[in-house]
Structures are given as structure tokens and as C-alpha cells.
């Protein structure tokens, strides 16, 4: 009998090309590398400089998402890039993909989108895989029971050339989420609550496995929201064991097996769970019933609390600086804080159910005067599906801007950004100083909270904005 193993250990063991020793890390095989324009150009240059080939074009998939405009091209096809550098960076990825034979979901692809949205949509992300990308939110793919993590550009080059990485085995952290989330409380509230509990460095050196009744009940999109933010707790990766929800979501997608091969794959994937008796290095228990609509009040995602709970007093000068930057008052809740901009989108909350959640609040209501709201679908596929349901009409009727897919204001490097001092309620994942524009103040929230705040003009509880009937 083999010793009981965790889900992480099963995936790790299956990908070891050369085991680690005291002197050297393991050589770990990578099943899929995702590539985008920002973190790849210097890696391709290394390949060229050393005369190396791309080892597995078939295990490499590229898209445009970070630097690209989300406003449409003009009549003559000219795209409104923020800077010539952004345009040049995109052109560089196009050239690199052509030269090395990589499938690129560029401007002409009907599947283009944020790298962590399109991987799953295409069925490129599958249970049991190892997946990397020069992007820390690669942890998103862990929702499918894949070991997925972000790497630096030097390592992007390593994988391009060898399909392998040098890795020390991380530790494991189980986060058990017991009970059931209350009505009106979702995955984003849950993950903000978890990071608020364990801290921004609570997962450092670990791979998190999320498990328990509340996790099993989550949709795939909700699981992606949870795994996406694992890195905000310092963890390399987040994992959720694949189950029938996973298989149903993946079946029929472009890159998954079909017919008998599908059945065989499902049989294999079904074994990807932590064995009874397997040990984690650490375990944390969270009671889902305690989670409320949650927002951040400081300048990192660990400074999170229920939107009606009072902001705690700063314990030191560093926390005080964060409160000052946010203009947050200790003793008062975030609820009721005036809002300038609302952003719904990103690889955390830019999928169809996220847009529906926001639209439910906005239908029959209007964005408050003086508030600017941007809704940015995570991919072309999300955009198509949303438009087929008429969600774009709901957003436009409410006074929000409906944009083309991309990272947009999540990272604010494409020209979509807030002005100094503006308060942004954002469904993205980072509230660092200046993340959404120099001096911009970011409050992370769920799509429902973001939409309710847009309507109220102040940070608002979405449960006070029940869905209205469709106009007859």
C-alpha cells in the first residue's frame, strides 16, 4: 500500500523528471505554459541569443491582455494604444509567436482574453496538469485541480527551452471551509475573508488546498475566484480537487479529449483527491456561515473586513500610513464611503456569472451621478455570452461603460485608470498603492458589492439591492 498523499503530492510526484537532492532542486515537467505580452519578450530574446528552439509549441499558448486597449479600433482599424511602447510590446509578441510557432489568441481570434480566463475556456486547463505563466495569478487554474503557479521571465525562458522548471517542493496548507455561505455572500467575499484571517503572508512557501462543504458547492467560476487570490495570501498556488462540477464544466471544450478518451480522462482525474490520512504541513478552519459581504480598507488584500464592521485602529505607523492613504477612519465601517469609480472585470471576477451578478443589481437602476463605472469582460467568449443575454444593454442602460476584453483597470497599464485620490470599488485582486493609477485608492469587493456601490454612490451592501423584475 502506498502512503496516503495529498492532491498536491500526487500532481507533484507525477511531474518529477529528476528528483530534488540537498544540492539541487527537482526538475519538474510543465504540461502547459501560458504566455502574454508583458513578461515574455526578454525570455524569447534569451532563446534567440542562445540559438535555442521552443521545445513544445503544442504546450504553449499565448494571448494579448495586459497592455491592450479595451476601447474599439477606429474606422481605419487603428487601435487606441495608451503608448507607442504598449503597441510595440504587442507587436513583439505577435512576431515572437510567428517565429516560434506558438498559437496566439491575438486581435483576430474570437477566443482572445485574459490569460487565466481563456485557458479554462479552451479546455487547455485540465485536472492534474502543471501549468505556469509569467503571471502570479496563474494560481487561478488550480480551481481545476491543476498545480498552477506564476514564474518570472527567466523561468519563462527555461520552460520555453526545456518544458521544465527547477523547483523546491513547497509545503502544503489545507484551508477547510465548513458550513454554507449565507445568501447574498459569494466566492469573492469568502476569499477576502480568508486572506483577512490568515494575512498576506499566511500562505508563503505553501500550496493551499481549499476543501470542505462550502468549496464543494461552489461553481467553477467561483472556485476560480478563490484560487485566483491564493497569491494574495502569499501562496504559490491554490488547489481544489476536481469533481463532477469540474468535469461537467470542461466537457465538450475545444482542447479536452472527446468520446472514449473523455471517459478515460474523467476516470483518471477522479483519483485526484487527497487520500484519507494524508498530512498537510498546516491546516486552517474557516466557518462559511460567518462570512459577510467583505471589502478591503487598506493597501493590501489582508486588510479586509465585513463592509459594516468598523475599521480597526492602526497598530503601528505602517498601518496608519495605509489608513491615511485610503483616507479610511478607524472606528467607522467602509460602508457609506463615497465612490468615484467602479470597475467590474479582471481574472478574478470577469467571467459570465460575475457579470450576471453585477447586472442583477443594475437592472432597472442607474449608476449614481458622478460615478464612473467600467465593465470589462474577461474574454471574447465572455463578451459574446453576456451580449447574447443582453447584459451589455443592462450595463449601458444603467450608465456604465461596456468595454472590450482585457486586464484593463486591474493593472491600469493600458490607459484605463483612476485619477489621484479617486476611490475605486474594484472586483480585481490587488489594492496596492497606485495599482489602479498613481494615488488611486482601491477597495476590493465582489461584483454585487461593486454594482450596489455604483448605484448608491457610496460603498453599499448588495443585499439592500434585490434583483428587480425585468421590464415587461
Amino acid at each position, binding site marked *: 500500500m502506498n502512503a496516503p498523499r495529498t492532491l498536491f503530492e500526487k500532481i507533484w510526484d507525477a511531474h518529477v523528471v529528476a528528483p530534488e537532492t540537498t544540492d*539541487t532542486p527537482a526538475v519538474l515537467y510543465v504540461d502547459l505554459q501560458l504566455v502574454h505580452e*508583458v513578461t515574455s519578450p526578454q525570455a524569447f530574446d534569451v532563446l534567440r541569443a542562445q540559438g535555442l528552439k521552443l521545445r513544445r509549441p503544442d504546450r504553449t499558448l499565448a494571448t494579448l491582455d*495586459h*497592455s491592450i486597449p479595451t476601447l474599439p479600433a477606429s474606422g481605419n482599424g487603428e487601435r487606441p494604444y495608451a503608448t507607442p511602447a504598449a503597441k510595440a*510590446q504587442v507587436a513583439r509578441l505577435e512576431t515572437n509567436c510567428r517565429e516560434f510557432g506558438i498559437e496566439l489568441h491575438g486581435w483576430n481570434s474570437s477566443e482572445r482574453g485574459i490569460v487565466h480566463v481563456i485557458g479554462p475556456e479552451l479546455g487547455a486547463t485540465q485536472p492534474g496538469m502543471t501549468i505556469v505563466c509569467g503571471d502570479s495569478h496563474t494560481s487561478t487554474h488550480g480551481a481545476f485541480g491543476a498545480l498552477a503557479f506564476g514564474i518570472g521571465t527567466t523561468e519563462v*525562458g527555461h520552460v520555453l527551452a526545456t518544458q521544465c522548471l527547477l523547483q523546491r517542493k513547497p509545503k502544503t496548507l489545507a484551508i477547510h471551509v465548513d458550513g454554507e455561505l449565507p445568501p447574498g455572500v459569494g466566492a469573492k467575499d469568502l476569499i477576502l475573508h480568508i486572506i483577512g484571517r490568515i494575512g498576506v503572508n499566511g500562505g508563503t512557501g505553501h500550496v493551499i488546498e481549499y476543501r470542505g462543504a462550502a468549496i464543494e458547492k461552489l461553481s467553477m467560476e467561483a472556485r476560480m475566484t478563490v484560487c485566483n487570490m491564493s497569491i494574495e495570501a502569499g501562496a504559490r498556488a491554490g488547489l481544489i480537487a476536481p469533481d463532477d462540477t469540474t468535469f461537467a464544466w470542461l466537457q465538450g471544450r475545444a482542447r479536452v479529449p472527446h468520446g472514449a478518451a473523455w471517459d478515460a480522462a474523467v476516470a483518471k482525474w477522479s483519483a485526484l483527491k487527497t487520500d484519507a490520512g494524508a498530512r498537510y504541513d498546516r491546516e486552517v478552519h474557516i466557518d462559511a456561515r460567518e462570512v459577510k459581504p467583505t471589502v478591503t480598507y487598506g493597501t493590501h488584500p489582508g486588510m479586509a473586513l465585513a463592509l459594516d464592521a468598523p475599521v480597526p485602529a492602526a497598530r503601528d505607523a505602517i498601518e496608519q500610513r495605509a489608513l491615511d492613504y485610503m483616507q479610511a477612519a478607524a472606528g467607522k465601517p467602509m460602508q457609506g464611503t463615497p465612490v468615484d469609480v467602479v470597475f467590474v472585470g479582471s481574472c478574478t471576477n470577469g467571467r459570465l456569472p460575475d457579470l450576471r451578478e453585477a447586472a442583477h443589481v443594475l437592472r432597472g437602476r442607474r449608476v449614481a451621478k458622478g460615478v464612473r463605472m467600467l465593465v470589462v469582460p474577461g474574454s471574447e467568449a465572455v463578451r459574446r455570452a453576456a451580449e447574447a443575454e443582453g447584459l451589455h444593454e443592462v450595463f449601458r442602460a444603467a450608465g456604465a461603460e461596456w468595454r472590450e476584453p482585457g486586464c484593463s483597470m486591474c493593472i491600469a497599464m493600458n490607459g484605463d485608470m483612476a485619477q489621484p485620490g479617486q476611490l475605486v470599488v474594484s472586483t480585481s485582486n490587488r489594492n*496596492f498603492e497606485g495599482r489602479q493609477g498613481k494615488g488611486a485608492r482601491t477597495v476590493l469587493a465582489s461584483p454585487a458589492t461593486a454594482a450596489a456601490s455604483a448605484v448608491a454612490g457610496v460603498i453599499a451592501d448588495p443585499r439592500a439591492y434585490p434583483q428587480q423584475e425585468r421590464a415587461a
Partner: protein
Amino acid sequence: MKPVTRIHSRTAVLADENIDTDRIIPARFLTTTTREGLGRVCFNDWRYLPDGSDNPAFPLNRPEAKGCAILVAGRNFGCGSSREHAPWALLDYGIRAVLSSEIADIFRNNALKNGLLAIVVAEAEHHWLLDNPGVDLSIDVREQTITLPGGKAFRFELEPFARHCLLEGVDQLGFLLQHADAITAYEQHLEQAA
């Protein structure tokens, strides 16, 4: 990579905790396609005032911090994104080592691969270093020691392979390429299993 064996410098201190990669280099500077010249925008939004002049409140702008190659930073330095632009910017700015009681995983990995010493020190030493900016330190990679002015030294942990690569200037890609046969064998085994 050039070998890195020893660094001797005065320290500069950034006591803030959780200094994230967006603070080290804001995202709008990531549209570059090279790794050169990023020192100019290192800590950009903290370091300059809106009119482009130096912000006197940024600790590294103080005269005594000029030329310091060792940065002592608050807990959880380098959290956030995987951008390797962060260590590239720090190196180009003139920083050769970052000491903290905790350093984010991906940043540390990226830093060491570029010859930037990202070193985790114990709480007590970290406190002392934070409280005493401008001390002359000598970091010895081979011995894994940090020596204080009076000759007092303490040890730090360094992953053995990272240490080896720093000392010998080993190119990790070259090391990986030596495993080509094992990788091919692994891939053949994958195809057969499918």
C-alpha cells in the same frame, strides 16, 4: 550571470512592511521589451513628487542613503506580482542585496536568478538592522554570513543550489539543458501513458 561572492556596503532602510512589486516598479512601466534601464523608475511613485523632483520623504533619497547597495526592508518584501522587472529595476538602481525577515517567494526566486541577494534574516537581527540605518555590512555568500562593523557576524540560510549558482555564476538554463535526455524519456513515457 556574473558570480556574486561578497558584497560590502552601507545599508539603507525602507521600514514599510509588505512593499509590493507595484511599489518597486509601477505597472505602467512594464511595457518595456528589454530588461535595461529600469533603475530610473525604481520606486517611481514613492521616489518622485508630482513635478518630477525627488520626494524628500522617500528614505532612499536622503543623502546618507546614496550609493548604498544593501537595502534593509520591512517584513514581506516583494509581495504581489511575478514581474522580474522588480529585481531588474533594483539592480539597475544599484541595489545588490535585500535583507528582510520575510521575502515573498516569487520575488526571492527572481532576485537570486539575477544575482540580487534576497536574504531572510532572523527577527532580532532584522529589528536591529531596521533601527540602525547606514551601518557597514559585509555579506559573504560562501560562508553565508553577514558581518557587522565590530566584527560580529551572523549566519543566514541560502538554498544550496542558489548559493552554488551565485558563487559559480552558473546559468540555470544551461543546467536544465543538461537534463535533455531525462526530459525526452519523461515525454516518451507521457505519450505511452496517453
